[in-house]
């Protein structure tokens, strides 16, 4: 099972990214758990400077952008 984390303080952009990630996982037919990380200490642990950031299986794949679900799907496929 894939673990997708959304790093961000809970602003609108983070929610949009979360929604897109969910849609991408569903479209790719991947079982994925989506976790929203809002704790600054934990965000800091990933070394991320612009939020929202997307983390797939503990690897930071994008920062400061709201990726579309299509773009997230492309990131999901090689990992799966």
């Amino acid at each position, binding site marked *: 099972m894939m673990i997708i984390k959304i*790093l*961000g*303080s809970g*602003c609108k*952009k983070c929610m949009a990214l979360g929604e897109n990630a969910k849609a991408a996982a569903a479209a790719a037919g991947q079982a994925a758990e989506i976790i929203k990380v809002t704790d*600054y*200490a934990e*965000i*800091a*642990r*990933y*070394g*991320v*400077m*612009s*939020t929202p950031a997307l983390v797939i299986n503990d690897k*930071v794949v994008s*920062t*400061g*952008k*709201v990726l579309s679900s299509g773009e997230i799907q492309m990131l999901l496929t090689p990992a799966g």
Partner: protein
Amino acid sequence: MTEIFRWMNDQLLRMQWLSDLVTLLVRDVFGLDIATRIGASVHFFIYYVIKIFILLSVLIFSISWVQSYFPPERTRRILGEHKGIGANIMAALLGTITPFCSCSSIPLFIGFTGAGLPIGVTFSFLISSPLVDLASVILLASIFNWSIALAYVLVGLVLAVIGGTLISRAGMEDHIEAFVFQSPIMTGDGETPTRRERFRFARDQVVEIFQKVWLYVLIGVGVGAAIHNWIPESVITGLLGQDNWWSVLVATLIGIPIYADIFGTLPIAEALVAKGVGLGTALAFMMAVTALSLPSMIMLKNVVKLPLLLLFAGIVAAGIIIIGYLFNAFGHLFV
């Protein structure tokens, strides 16, 4: 040559054509006399809302394009190459072009400080970033004039450099939460975006900032129209006039807890100045609203302890007040 510049300044930047057009609209379509209070208020409101929205869209788009060349990772690398006050100056300058939203200020603070940048440098960046962005400069030039806009940038940068330097001197590193220093550092500048990605970033920024500030703009322009036409000049000058030595102080204190965007505050500042309030007082109000706000303080509280937070707020507030008095004393040189 100066003729051309003046024409461009009046028509493109100050949008004289729009003012004329709105005059026609108010007079011939609404049937209101521009000289009456209601007519003048309606004109002020429509003219400023359209003008600010046009400027906002054009400016945010072009500035975001420039910003896409300066992601925070790159800014951090550049800052790491400078030492001492040079680093503070660089931080203040880069603060004007690095994309910044208050929701990103904490990860950015952690990213900078955790990477070993002196806290003073980080604070120089945090002061200049909301205070002096390129959009605000052009708006200031559009609503007041170029010399005021340039003077504003200059004092804003000086405040950021001095503020950051003072915070460095205070040696308050132990007032930063420990986890900040334990974060790993991602090196490199990140991936370079393609032209299409830059375009998308710029377009998204316009949409996003528009959604964020349109209400502030409407409120700000509404307050400006009210000040212009309904509140007697004696009340305004009685409260914030040049004769009162405490006017700058009051304006700053009123502005600190308020959170609004610079786009919303400019029409208020313009109306205040038109009513005889000192330029310094109006600018102090504007700077206090944009640079210091309760939401951003609460956010910073996550990473710094109270004494450092208070020092930061104190230095910035003091700086704004000094700038306000300086502009009141020398403001006649600019208007």
